[in-house]
Structures are given as C-alpha cells and as structure tokens.
C-alpha cells in the first residue's frame, strides 16, 4: 500500500495541489493541506483499502484537515477563521465538479506564468508547483543553486498572494498574449522530461507525459495553431522515446534507432496536428519544429530522409527565431543534404562566435563531421571538448564510447 501511495503521489499530487490552491486560495496553505492529505492516506488506507476515487478523497481530506487547523488557529488569525468558515459552507453546498477540477492545473499554470512575475520566477514556479520538480532539479536545469531557486519561488508566491494575482484562466481577450509564456514553460517542462539536463536518468517519461497532457488541455481550451504545433512537436519527439536509449540506458542516435518501434499512434496524431497548424498560415516556431520532426517521423531511414525539405524548414525557422542552436541544427541538416564538408564549414563559422563555444552539442556535431571525413585527430579533439562540457550521464557515456572507437 505504501508503494501504491508513493506512486499516487508521483502521478496525482500536483493535480490535488492545483485543486487545493483553488479551494484554499493560498499556495502555502494548499501545500500544507496536500501534505496532511497524504499523511491521512498513509494512516487510513492500509486498513481501509484505497478509495474508489483517490484524488477526490485526497482533495477532501486535505480540505477537511485544513478547516480543522484553521479553526484551531482562528483565534489568532482573523483571516484564517474567515477562510475556514467559507470552506465549511462550500463543502456542504457541493462536491467539487469534475470539470472545475480538470481546469485547476490550467489555472495553476496561468497563475504561475503570470506576466507580473519575472520569467525566471514563472519557470521556477511552474516547474515546482505544476510539475513537482524539486528545487535541486530546477536549480540544475537553470544552472543556479537550490537556495537561490527556493528564494525565487518564495518571492513569487508572496507576490501572488500580496498583489492578489487571481487564480483563474485569463479571459478570451487576454488569452493569446498570456499563452506565449505558457507554451515556453510547457516546452521547457517537456524537454526536462525528454532529455533531463543533468544526472544519470536520460528520459523521465512522467514529465514528458505531463507536458503532453498539459498541451492537450491547452488545445481544448484554445486551439490556436501554435498550441497545436507545440503539442504536435511533443508527440512526434515522444513517439521515439522507447528507441532513444538502449537496455542499459545508453544513448542511441536517430540514425541507429529502430524505426519500427516508433509509436505510430503518436506520429499520426502529431502529423495531423502539424498539418492543421500549417494550414492556418498563422503558425510559428513550434509548428515549424514539429514539421521538421514530422519529416523525420515519415522517413524510412536516415539516408531516405527528405533533407532538402528539412533544410528548407530550418531556413523558415531561422527567419523567425535567429537562435544559434537553430543555426547549428540547420548546419547538421545541410551536412546530410550536401555532405560533411558543407556542414563543417557552417559549424566552424558558428564556432567563431561565442554563443555556441560552451555548447557540448556544437563540438559533438563538429567531431562527428570530422569523423565522417576521416579527420581522426580533429574528431578526437571535438569529442573530448564535448565530453568536458556535457553534464548528462547518457550523453557523456555516448561521447566516451565515440572517443574509444577512435582510439582517443
């Protein structure tokens, strides 16, 4: 039972929290209530068995225990007394509706991604509150320390409370402007699940699945092209999840993946959504990235991939997002279309600027082109530099393997 409850904590705790924030009107109270609810489950479930709807049980247990606590402390905190009375009245009036509960995570996302918070705070708060990452994990993802991150989250929560940032989904008129921030945060979350930025565990399916679930919810609420595009991108990348690492966790490159094991259902849905988004003529960078992923998904092998189309899509992407990482990916696609010399020339040019010099994948890509050109010394030097900069376990092992193959 304890394992089952732990499992439930992993899958349900954030949804329960999102509902408790709505019911209690305060992040810290809700977190306390969540803790209380799971303590109660640990006490009662082993004897009584798991309830039919554990999430609803946890929500009402958290709510009841907080009403109790608030009443006990009510004498000292007028406002707590008020909250307790209000909660007790609401509790008698109605059980939480399923529909409202489904929207709670969306409410939580829009609140965590509120434009009155700094972007750093939005990301940290969403990853902490919506996704349940630890402050250590978030700190690693943002290359900062856990105390700095914790401080950032405390400040953000204080602003939500003191400035009265409402716990709601924005009105239709405000929605598009608010959406962009949310998409960014969801994609970062997906990437944290898809390719954990540090540590040994390469893929964390629960996080990627959570990001896709949030993407689907957003699609229902606001079926804008870029929401479709982001969801398509996540689905297409996620369709390869079982083939990206081997049995012992080693990284498997796109060219070596067993394409027969790609998830066709995700691919079909991803492609449908890309077509829908492209057809709107109002698409952006997520849709273009999804279109690139779709070309890969449809290709029978790396050599039978439509690299000309991929280069064209990268050109379009670069025209709206002049990021050096996009330029790097374009260079890799050019190498596939025109040969490694062409790609190497582009990468060498990119590495003359500081932006990519500390980016391990730039050095790994350069090393790979040198390897294909039989420039062994340059390849070894490139993989070494990449290995020095890489922080993720599976990536490090992959680079070390390449080095060993070259006798470096």
């Amino acid at each position: 039972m304890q394992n089952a409850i732990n499992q439930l904590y992993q899958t349900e705790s954030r949804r329960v929290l999102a509902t408790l924030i709505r019911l209690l009107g305060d992040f810290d109270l809700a977190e306390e209530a969540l803790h209380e609810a799971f303590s109660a489950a640990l006490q009662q479930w082993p004897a009584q068995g798991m309830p039919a709807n554990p999430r609803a049980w946890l929500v009402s247990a958290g709510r009841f225990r907080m009403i109790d606590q608030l009443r006990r402390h009510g004498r000292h905190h007028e406002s707590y007394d008020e909250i307790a009375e209000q909660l007790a009245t609401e509790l008698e009036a109605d059980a939480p509706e399923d529909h409202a509960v489904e929207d709670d995570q969306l409410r939580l996302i829009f609140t965590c991604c509120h434009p009155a918070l700094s972007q750093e705070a939005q990301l940290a708060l969403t990853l902490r509150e919506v996704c349940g990452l630890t402050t250590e994990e978030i700190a690693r993802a943002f290359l900062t320390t856990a105390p700095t991150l914790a401080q950032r989250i405390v400040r953000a929560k204080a602003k939500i409370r003191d400035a009265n940032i409402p716990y709601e989904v924005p009105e239709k008129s405000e929605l598009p402007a608010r959406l962009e921030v949310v998409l960014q945060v969801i994609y970062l979350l997906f990437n944290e699940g898809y390719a954990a930025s540090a540590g040994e565990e390469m893929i964390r399916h629960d996080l990627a699945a959570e990001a896709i679930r949030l993407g689907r919810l957003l699609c229902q609420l606001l079926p804008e092209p870029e929401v479709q595009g982001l969801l398509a991108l996540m689905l297409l990348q996620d369709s390869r999840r079982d083939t990206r690492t081997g049995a012992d966790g080693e990284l498997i490159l796109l060219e070596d993946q067993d394409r027969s094991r790609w998830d066709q259902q995700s691919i079909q849905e991803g492609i449908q959504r890309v077509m829908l988004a492209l057809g709107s003529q109002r698409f952006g960078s997520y849709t273009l990235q999804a279109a690139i992923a779709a070309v890969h998904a449809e290709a029978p092998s790396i050599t039978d991939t439509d690299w000309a189309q991929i280069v064209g899509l990268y050109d379009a992407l670069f025209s709206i997002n002049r990021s050096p990482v996009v330029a790097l990916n374009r260079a890799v696609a050019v190498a596939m279309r025109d040969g490694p010399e062409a790609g190497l020339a582009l990468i060498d040019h990119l590495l003359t600027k500081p932006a990519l010099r500390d980016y391990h994948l730039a050095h790994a890509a350069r090393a790979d082109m040198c390897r294909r050109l039989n420039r062994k010394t340059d390849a070894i030097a490139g993989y070494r530099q990449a290995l020095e900069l890489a922080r993720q376990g599976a990536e490090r092992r992959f680079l070390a393997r390449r080095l060993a193959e070259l006798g470096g």
Partner: protein
Amino acid sequence: MKYLALVYYNEAIMNAMSQQEWDALNQECIGCVENLQRSGHFVDGHPLQQTDTATTVRVRNGKLTTTDGPFAETREQLAGFYMLEARDLNEAIQLAGKIPPARYGSIEVRPVRELKAEGNLAGGKST
C-alpha cells in the same frame, strides 16, 4: 482591493512637447479619470508638479533634514498617481494600461496594504 498606480515618465519628453500637444495629453487624462469614475474604479488621483518642485524630508536621530529634489536620480520621474479599486491584479493591470502616460513612460502598480496594530505585512521579516 486597492491598488496605487504610480505614473512615471521622463519629464524631458513632456517638456519637449508644444503647449498644444501637452494640453491634448492632459485632456486625455481628464477623460481617463471620467471613465474610471463612471466604472467605479476611481478612488483618488492627482497629477504632480515636476520634480524640481520636490523636497525630500528625512528624520535621523530626531533631527529633521530637508533636501532639494527627489531622493534618487532616475531616468523616469514620478508624475502623478491613481488610487484604483480593482477586483485583482489582472483588472488593475488592465486599468493601468488605459492611463494615457503609459504610452510615454511607465505605470507602477502597487497593492495597498492595510495599516494594522499588529501582524503588518511587508516588513518585520527578521526572526
């Protein structure tokens, strides 16, 4: 809930306007106040004279000192304020966006806190 919308702009930009342009902006502000009054969001508000009329007062060790001008040199100067009654920060932001000088400078939106005998917010964080 009450929010104070503090209007900041670079006085040099306003000084560079013709009398006609400046009056037109002020007429817009009159219209803005009328709209806020009609919708029940306006509590109070006034424009301020420029910072060269400001005097900063401090009391240190029981002694009052005054200095000429605002306490800090900044790119934008406080130019006026609106005390707004708003449902939440979202509504306050929407209202602040309609204040005409937002197009030239910036509007700082700050929740008002209640002054209480004890348990006051915003300070007293040392344990």
